């Protein structure tokens, strides 16, 4: 097996280890005897060990895996589509749209599920708007699409700021800010059940089409000359990535860094061929968010905001990888 092929199974094994570690870390100690009882189905479902493992840790870990994989996959396909390494899954305004949706519903005093639905729908809406705006210009559609995303994103950010301004300072305004910070703390099975389909299905589609994503690297003109309809593929990629990102933002708030940098790490490991890079990126993202979230919930008595940790741990790791990928460069 070549080197690129070896990375994926290795990462999967590593993920499995991280998940097992994450499952066994927490405020409620779970002894090997407890594990045995749980696995044999003999434990009372109201025992604290059962609740901690099955009702709290498991959904949270699954959400971390799913969101990490989803954001990284979206980042990878977007960076491929736009042929730009600085693109993140939020480039078409999903995050701003979702944030606005959530803020609106928080301001209206809606319940948590409703806030999540609002965030999801407005995330979709912002991308539809950006896509529609980008279509007006036939000349350089990709560039126009990015710019439209920036425009729509700014519009929704401004609207969110406005909502924060008019929200009451004691209650709603802090709730909006807190929600936007991003956290996996309050995720249960129900939240996962609602949002998993709109993440798993698009992830699977992207996975199926991973080899076709390489077409984007040819540029639109060349791909067309080969008889490939990139327009349809482009629409599919945008739909999938948007659905994933909007669902992720809807249950966890805005978690930055992952969608931008994990794809780079993946490419440093296996090169830019999407047949390898997409899978590695997904696994790496899942593993990474799971690891970071475990630290966020166990390092101190309080929850540590996950956005801080993703960057604090991710930045040095990325710098290290860069050094290893380009040894000698920069030296005299």
């Amino acid at each position, binding site marked *: 097996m070549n080197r690129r092929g070896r990375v994926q199974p290795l990462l999967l094994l590593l993920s499995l280890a991280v998940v097992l570690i994450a499952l066994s870390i927490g405020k*409620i100690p779970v002894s090997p005897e407890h594990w045995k009882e749980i696995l044999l189905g003999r434990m009372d479902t109201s025992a604290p060990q059962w609740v901690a493992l099955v009702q709290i840790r498991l959904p949270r870990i699954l959400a971390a895996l799913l969101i990490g994989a989803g954001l990284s996959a979206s980042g990878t396909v977007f960076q491929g589509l736009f042929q730009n390494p600085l693109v993140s899954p939020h480039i078409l305004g999903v995050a701003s749209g979702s944030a606005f949706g959530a803020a609106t519903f928080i301001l209206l005093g809606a319940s948590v599920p409703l806030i999540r639905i609002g965030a999801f729908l407005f995330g979709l809406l912002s991308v539809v708007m950006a896509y529609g705006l980008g279509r007006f210009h036939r000349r350089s559609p990709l560039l126009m699409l990015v710019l439209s995303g920036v425009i729509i994103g700014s519009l929704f950010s401004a609207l969110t700021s406005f909502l924060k301004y008019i929200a009451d*300072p004691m209650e709603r305004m802090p709730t909006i800010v807190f929600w936007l910070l991003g956290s996996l703390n309050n995720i249960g099975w129900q939240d996962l059940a609602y949002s998993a389909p709109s993440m798993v299905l698009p992830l699977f589609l992207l996975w199926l089409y991973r080899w076709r994503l390489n077409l984007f690297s040819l540029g639109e003109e060349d791909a067309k000359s080969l008889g490939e309809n990139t327009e349809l593929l482009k629409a599919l990629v945008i739909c999938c990535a948007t659905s994933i990102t909007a669902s992720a933002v809807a249950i966890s708030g805005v978690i930055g860094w992952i969608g931008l940098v994990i794809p780079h790490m993946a490419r440093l490991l296996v090169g830019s061929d999407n047949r390898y890079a997409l899978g590695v990126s997904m696994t790496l993202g899942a593993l990474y968010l799971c690891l970071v979230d475990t630290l966020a919930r166990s390092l101190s008595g309080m929850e540590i905001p996950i956005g801080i940790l993703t960057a604090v741990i991710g930045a040095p790791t990325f710098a290290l990888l860069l050094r290893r990928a380009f040894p000698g460069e920069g030296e005299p």
Partner: protein
Amino acid sequence: MVNKSLLLFLLFLTLPACTLSKRKDPNTAREIVDMLGNRVTVPKPLERVALFSGPTGQIALILRADKHLCAVTKTFKLSPLVREYFPHITALPSPRTVNGMINIEELVASRAQLLIAGKVDGELVQRKTSIPVAFFEDSLDEGPEAIIQEIRFYARIFRAEPRAEAYIRCMKTVETLISSRLKSLEESQRLRVYNGFSPSHLVTLGGDTFFSKNIERAGCINSASSIKTLGKREGLHSGLGEISMEQVLAWNPDIIVVDTGNPEALKADPRWSSLKAVQAGRVYTIPSGFFVWNRPTAEAAALYPLWLAMTAYPEKFKDLSLPAILKEFYRTVFSVSLRDEQIGMILSGAYREKMMRNVP
């Protein structure tokens, strides 16, 4: 030429001294000491005071100084009880929205003779205007003594010492009542209380805050006493911190107090339903009067411990009626006669919900 400019310079030097000596005229000015120990000269009579202290500003109402207020915070005006019993407050300008966000022109336009504010707001106003500022202590780590100091500080400004002492007597009476009833309570019998705020019920006040002291005054123990939450975190009010669901499970409190949502809903949530408090049906909504009882207000300093003690150990207070005590408290302290249904709304936390709906 040099002499002339020197003269002019000397004149400038003496100018502030002139105004200063004019201000100190005992007929038109007086000096007060604020909570940070600064001496502040205020005009006499003092008729227009701007108050930037959010919910704790209710002290001005206790002192019956509401007629002398000329500007308040946005939050202060949201309280339904303030709106009903002090309607003129709602017509006042609110130049401050959150800490450090002040519309200076609106403040100046209110013709304030004095501003009562915390550190951030007060220093901002001092830099930009000539309005004298009296600072209050806005740390959250102190218990009832801080409230007593605060009300005496306000009393010095508004010259309402007798009303301040009346409140302090009231608070002490409540305190004595609780401690006399809980005298026989063993250390091992004390119930553990977890206060879970926000819709997730996972935001709480730790062992280093005033709130822990309020819980202890009720003969209970703060489940979160082992963690420190003092300080400001983005998206949360100062003193609040977020903990994990599993932490609550590990604490397994005897009583849970929430501020949002229906306490019954916890029974249906598998993450909460196995907790001792939920199983025993001991989940309560925090009461809310002029303001929610989880902030360091004068109202909550006296009433939260009483409510919690009577809720946690009802058998020790069998002969007492909480609504009757509350009625008496609001009559003595705030000089308002509350109706039975209003007392009911305070205890059910309904005023908190209403307050949120008053948001424009």
